[in-house]
Structures are given as structure tokens and as C-alpha cells.
């Protein structure tokens, strides 16, 4: 169980690319370790290998901890187990939807390998499932592009990973 006090502090660190989500919502905080010498180590994991926001996230976590009086916090990146959207908090998924990004479906339902398979993604604006995929890729590594066929709005889908 991670220290709730630290998690509360980290819940103020936003994802620079999807600022409505905190790093805690995103599920990338893997552990918080208090060392015997009093120093603090935060273990984070990248969403995607090439995610360019990771360096900034690590810096922002360090700044937030320093601002809260933790001396020389250490931020360590761990790769395994690999991050999955199943680690995103339910609160985070609600925040995403309100922000206009369709939240990821639970992993067991999707990540289908069969070709041309499309997931029924719900439009975050009008809640219709009558949507189509415009592209498997989007403005950031973690998103795909969809369009609602009822309200016609284009929207981002935080893809299942």
C-alpha cells in the first residue's frame, strides 16, 4: 500500500498532454519508497515507450515533492510490469469523459488482434455507441481518432493498451 500522503501530493501533478488527468489517475505511479536515510524514491512507468512527456512528468513530480518539503526525491523509471490502461483509476476515466476524450474500455473486451475489428466506442458528448474509427493513431501516442455518427462530433479515444 502506497503512502496516502505522498499520493495526495502526486495527485496535483498533471499529465502534460492530458492535463485533466493526474499521474495518479493515469496509474503510472508504481511505488513510493521511504529509504532509511529519510530520502524518498518514486517509481514511475511509461505509458508508451516513446512517450515524450515522461521526462517532463519526472521533473514535475520532483518539483512537487520539493515544494512539499521532501529533500532530493529520486524518480526511477521501471518498465516491467508494462503499463496498461486497466491501471487507470475510475475517477480518471470519468474525468477523461468530461474532458471530451472517450475513456479506454476494459482490456479483456478489446485489444482485439483480428484485422479490421472495431470496438464500440461511446461518444463522450452524446453517449451514442454509433461511432466510427477515423484512425488508430491520434495527437499523442495514447489516443486514436473517432467520429460520432449521430452527433457528428470528432473525438479522441484513449485507446486500450
Amino acid at each position, binding site marked *: 500500500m502506497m503512502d496516502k500522503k505522498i499520493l495526495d501530493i502526486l495527485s496535483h501533478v498533471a499529465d502534460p498532454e492530458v492535463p485533466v488527468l493526474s499521474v495518479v489517475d493515469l496509474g503510472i505511479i508504481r511505488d513510493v519508497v521511504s529509504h532509511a536515510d529519510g530520502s524518498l524514491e518514486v517509481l514511475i512507468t511509461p505509458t*508508451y*515507450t*516513446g512517450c515524450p512527456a515522461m521526462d517532463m512528468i519526472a521533473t514535475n513530480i520532483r518539483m512537487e515533492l520539493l515544494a512539499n518539503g521532501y529533500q532530493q526525491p529520486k524518480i526511477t523509471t521501471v*518498465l*516491467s510490469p*508494462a503499463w496498461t490502461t486497466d491501471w487507470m483509476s475510475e475517477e480518471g476515466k470519468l474525468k477523461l469523459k468530461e474532458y471530451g476524450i472517450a475513456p479506454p474500455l476494459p482490456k479483456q473486451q478489446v485489444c482485439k488482434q483480428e*484485422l479490421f475489428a472495431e470496438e464500440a466506442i461511446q461518444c463522450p458528448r452524446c453517449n451514442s455507441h454509433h461511432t466510427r474509427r477515423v484512425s488508430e493513431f491520434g495527437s499523442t*501516442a495514447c489516443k486514436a481518432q473517432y467520429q460520432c455518427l449521430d452527433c457528428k462530433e470528432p473525438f479522441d479515444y484513449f485507446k486500450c493498451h
Partner: protein
Amino acid sequence: MNEYLFEYVVHLADDALILGHRNSEWCGHGPVLEQDIAITNISLDLIGQARNFFQYAAEIKGGDTTEDSLAYLRDVREFRNCLLVEQQNGDWGKTILRQFFMSNYQQLLYSRLENSFDRQIAAICEKALKEVTYHLKWSSEWVIRLGDGTDESHARMINAIDELWTYTGELFIPAGYEAKALESGLAPDITALKNDWLNRVALVFEEAKLPVPTAGFAQTGGKQGMHTEYLGYILAEMQYLQRTYPASKW
């Protein structure tokens, strides 16, 4: 230092880096905006994977070696990528086909390496496997879309197969460091991946109405540092800044 391990990890990094760089050449030139974004997102994944492998290789090598010195300060003959990834982009069809061949291979390789006893290689591949699986799906769909598309797109895919097929055999012919990696139990037998790879090509090509070539001759040498003329041009562009202004930083 463990020489074969270093070379093996550099090989994995170079494959990802050079394909990532090739794909990045599409930035701003994609056939439609969404696919421009798609191919450059794939670049981002691949360059991210290359960084992880390079960081590990630098750790193995020790001394002054860094991920940047490995990417920016080695010469052509020191690169260990296969010939396939350095081939020119050509048209969209050729780029798609190259991606399909390589993602197909990486997916098979990484799904074995994620169980390697080398914990760092296993962790990098566990992470990367999700990404290359997505690339494989995307590129498979595009091979089908183009192969079974118009007369023009079909003819271009036939052309792409003619140009690229001869470079696919190298993937399954072990270089010295791959043989040593197998011997030590670190890596899988890549010759044994060929059947699965071919079966997947056959499946997608059948749907795409494309013929699977029977020609068996394989161009080799890339994994040992003997490259086609193209790699030098890639490095000239990629390494220009670090060569001209050594050790400059952002």
C-alpha cells in the same frame, strides 16, 4: 564487458532506430493527415524502444558510452541493423510493406524475448511488444487495403514485394552475436521464427490478393555491418548536428 551481449542489444536498438528514422521521413508528407500521424507515431514508439536498448547497451559498455554516443557517433560499419529497415521509403505501399515485414518479425521476436533470463531485455520487450503488436495490426490492414484496392495500388504492392522480398531472408539468418545469444539461452532461435512469420505473410497476402514470392535468395550483411548504400545517407542526416557541433545539447 560481455561483448556478444553488447552487440546483440545494439543490434536490437539499431533495427528500431533506423526503421523509426525512415518512418519519420514521412512527417509532413503522409498521403493523408491521419496516416501521416500514424506513421510518425510508429516512429515515436520505435525510437523510444531504440532508446531503451541503447541505454542498456551503454550500461553494458560502461565508460563514456551513452545512448547518444551510440546513436550519433558510430559509423556505418558499426551499425548492426538488418538491410530491410534501411531501404528507401519509396511510395506509401513500399513503406507499409516494410513495416508489415518488420512488425511481423519484431512481434515474434519480442514475444520470445519478454521471457529472456536477461531481466532488462525482457522488460524492454514486454513493454515494446504491445506497441509492435499494434503496428502489426495497422500495417496488415494497410497491406490488405492496398493489395486488394485499385489496379494502381495492387500494382504498386507487387512492385514493393519485388523490391523488398530479397531483404527479408536476413532476418532469420543468425549473425555471430545472435548465435551466441541463443547458445547462452538469452535469445530464441531466430531460424525457428521463419515459419510463423511466413504463415502470417501468407494469411495477409491471401486476403490482399497478393502472391507470396517463392524466390529464396537472401541479401545479407547488414547485421554484420555490411550495409547497402542507403544507410550512410541516413546517418549523414541523423548525425549531422552531433558531428558538426560535438557534444551540443538541447
